[in-house]
């Protein structure tokens, strides 16, 4: 295996990916929006041109080797016709508050916004409300990072959710990004913007899933059913003063997928952000979760569950950047790793001088199901404020013979015993998924594939 990839090759690779961005169609999008999008693209394009796909020599990518990505040449994903069947992905709780994007393209036919009340906006970017979006889209810090910059430089559309001041939305909003893996490798770059104005409250489910291509493949190559695809997603969430955003992020990409996702959150004074991130799919996945505190007294709750097997690699890099006093942060990151899979977790919490009286806690727990399974976990607390309470812990465990035996001695067979214990490990996080039907689905997935 050659890991030496010349920088030139990487640069070329990136600009080729950039070339796959959809063109901005004035007819469909409208001249004003096109001009605005072009402006945003133009700001990011030079950044992309300066950068390269990271290698394991980059500190932030030490354990996540993207060389297999470089072997694939991706073409732009296309909208499908007919549309795929998404019935298995529909959440009853959000049956009338769902935006669906297929291969990155908004699919109004599959979406349903009948349950979105007056004054709240949920729709795609082409709906033309640019003035109020201008200050938010592609405005969060961290946009210089290579995959975020690539996404922004390719910006074509976005799922937008806007909750006005003091409005508390009862129905959850489901943002569903479906990929229909096909015969050729494709790339799509979904984008979300969520703005919760001061005093508002909303629950958002952001989901990445694979759907069988509506047209059967004409031929199968070498036993491999679907080609690889790349999802490079960026989500920006603005949580206004005293507002509350509950966010579930489900990554259930297909087996052959590469998934890179950025979630950037700005938290104003006294706001509350709760995230439950579940990563199950993709061959290689990376989630960058970045919280920027913009006022005092914020509350940040990050829960995550990664369950991988086979040759999967799942990487989460999170940063909680505090900069004001009285913030609290609670993070629990759990990984279940089977076979030869590899989980990576890097959790930064930055507590500079101004962030006095911060109360932060981080816990990383990993369950390794096989001797070849691997985890690299690294807490990174950077604290310069002196009057703070910060704690972190990391555990790596295996299923204990004695625990399995105890269950067997009560009549459970070894597989059921293992599954019960795996499920028990996951429960803490699964229970915090804010939507009942989703909770059930995820718990079934966790329970159903016994990995050895």
């Amino acid at each position, binding site marked *: 295996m050659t890991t030496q990839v010349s920088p030139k090759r990487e640069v070329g690779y990136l600009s080729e990916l950039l070339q796959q961005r959809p063109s901005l169609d004035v007819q469909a999008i409208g001249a004003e929006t096109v001009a605005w999008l072009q402006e945003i693209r133009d700001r990011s394009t030079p950044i992309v041109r300066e950068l390269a796909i990271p290698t394991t020599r980059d500190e932030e990518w030490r354990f996540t080797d993207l060389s297999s990505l470089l072997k694939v040449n991706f073409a732009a994903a296309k909208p499908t016709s007919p549309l795929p069947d998404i019935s298995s992905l529909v959440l009853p709780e959000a049956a009338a508050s769902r935006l669906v994007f297929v291969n990155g393209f908004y699919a109004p036919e599959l979406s349903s916004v009948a349950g979105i009340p007056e004054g709240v906006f949920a729709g795609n970017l082409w709906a033309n409300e640019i003035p109020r979006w201008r200050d938010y889209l592609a405005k969060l810090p961290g946009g210089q990072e290579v995959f975020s910059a690539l996404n922004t430089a390719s910006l074509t559309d976005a799922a937008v959710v806007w909750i006005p001041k003091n409005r508390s939305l009862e129905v959850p909003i489901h943002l569903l990004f479906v990929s229909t893996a096909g015969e050729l490798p494709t790339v799509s770059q979904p984008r979300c913007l969520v703005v919760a104005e001061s005093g508002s409250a909303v629950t958002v489910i952001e989901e990445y899933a694979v759907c069988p291509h509506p047209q059967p493949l004409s031929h199968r190559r070498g036993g491999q059913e679907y080609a690889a695809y790349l999802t490079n997603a960026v989500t920006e969430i603005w949580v206004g003063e005293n507002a509350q955003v509950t966010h579930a992020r489900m990554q259930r990409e297909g087996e052959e997928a590469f998934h890179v996702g950025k979630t950037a959150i700005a938290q104003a004074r006294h706001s509350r952000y709760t995230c439950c991130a579940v990563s199950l799919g993709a061959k290689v996945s990376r989630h960058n979760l970045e919280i920027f505190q913009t006022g005092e007294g914020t509350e940040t709750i990050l829960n995550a569950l990664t369950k991988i097997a086979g040759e999967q690699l799942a990487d989460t890099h999170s940063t909680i950047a505090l900069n004001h006093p009285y913030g609290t942060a609670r993070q629990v990151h759990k990984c279940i790793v089977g076979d030869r899979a590899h989980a990576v977790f890097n959790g930064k919490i930055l507590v500079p001088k101004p962030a006095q009286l911060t109360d932060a806690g981080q816990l990383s727990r990993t369950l390794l199901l096989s001797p070849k399974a691997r985890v690299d976990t690294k807490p990174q607390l950077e604290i310069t404020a002196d009057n703070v309470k910060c704690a972190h812990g990391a555990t790596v465990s295996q299923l204990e013979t*004695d625990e399995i*035996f105890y269950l067997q001695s009560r009549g459970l067979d070894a597989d059921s015993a293992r599954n019960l214990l795996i*499920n028990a490990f996951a429960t803490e996080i699964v229970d915090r998924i804010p939507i009942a039907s989703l909770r059930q689905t995820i718990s079934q997935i966790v329970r159903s594939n016994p990995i050895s």
Partner: protein
Amino acid sequence: MMTEGSEVILSVRDLTAEVDGTPILKGMSLEIKAGEIHAIMGPNGSGKSTFSKVLAGHPAYEVTGGEVIFQGQNLLEMEPEERARSGVFLAFQYPLEIPGVSNLDFLRVAYNSRRKHQGLEELDAFDFDELIQEKLDVVKMDSAFLSRSVNEGFSGGEKKRNEILQMAILEPKLAILDETDSGLDIDALKIVANGVNQLANPENAMLVITHYQRLLNYIIPDRVHVMANGRIITSGTKELALELEARGYDWLLEAETAEVAV
């Protein structure tokens, strides 16, 4: 309750077993008939828990010789769960904590796997609830324990009572109680003993491992065995337990060494 001619539940002959190459059981022999209660006593480290775990099928112990027949079946050939489903129950000396698994779910899964094995219909959550309320009374446990994770944060006594609750639900053919009385106050001891006595009947058998004669005031054994160095060195009636309480084990161990020396 000893009756001639009643069915042999458990027959152990010359059983030897080791862990990581170290022999622990060195020729255990024992026979228990239906309707009988046997007690095993013996010093720390003599192999009592090892014996109970070998019977239950713990994978860490390797059986190197001898045989164990349970109701006519070769127990040693069965997986731990098959043994459980066929009616072998071990109340652990140190019951494990299983965070994230509710006690109620655990009990129902265990119960239904036994039912299924018996060719009976599995009970749904509703019917099981009724059964469990009745059994909770036996061990005087609050139903609040059902919604908690298995043994997590339970006190020592609560863990032991939870073991007896499991036993009461599973209604085993052979119940092995490994020091279920250790660390219990007198009230808890009575509750545990009461649970055992309610279960005991002419069709099943009990093997009670204990250090204390006190328990045997409440659970009257038919036979008392003394284990030392991996085997039974002497057996007797319940009076033997009283004698051990008064004199300790040394006189027996000395006699044993003297015998070996001869």
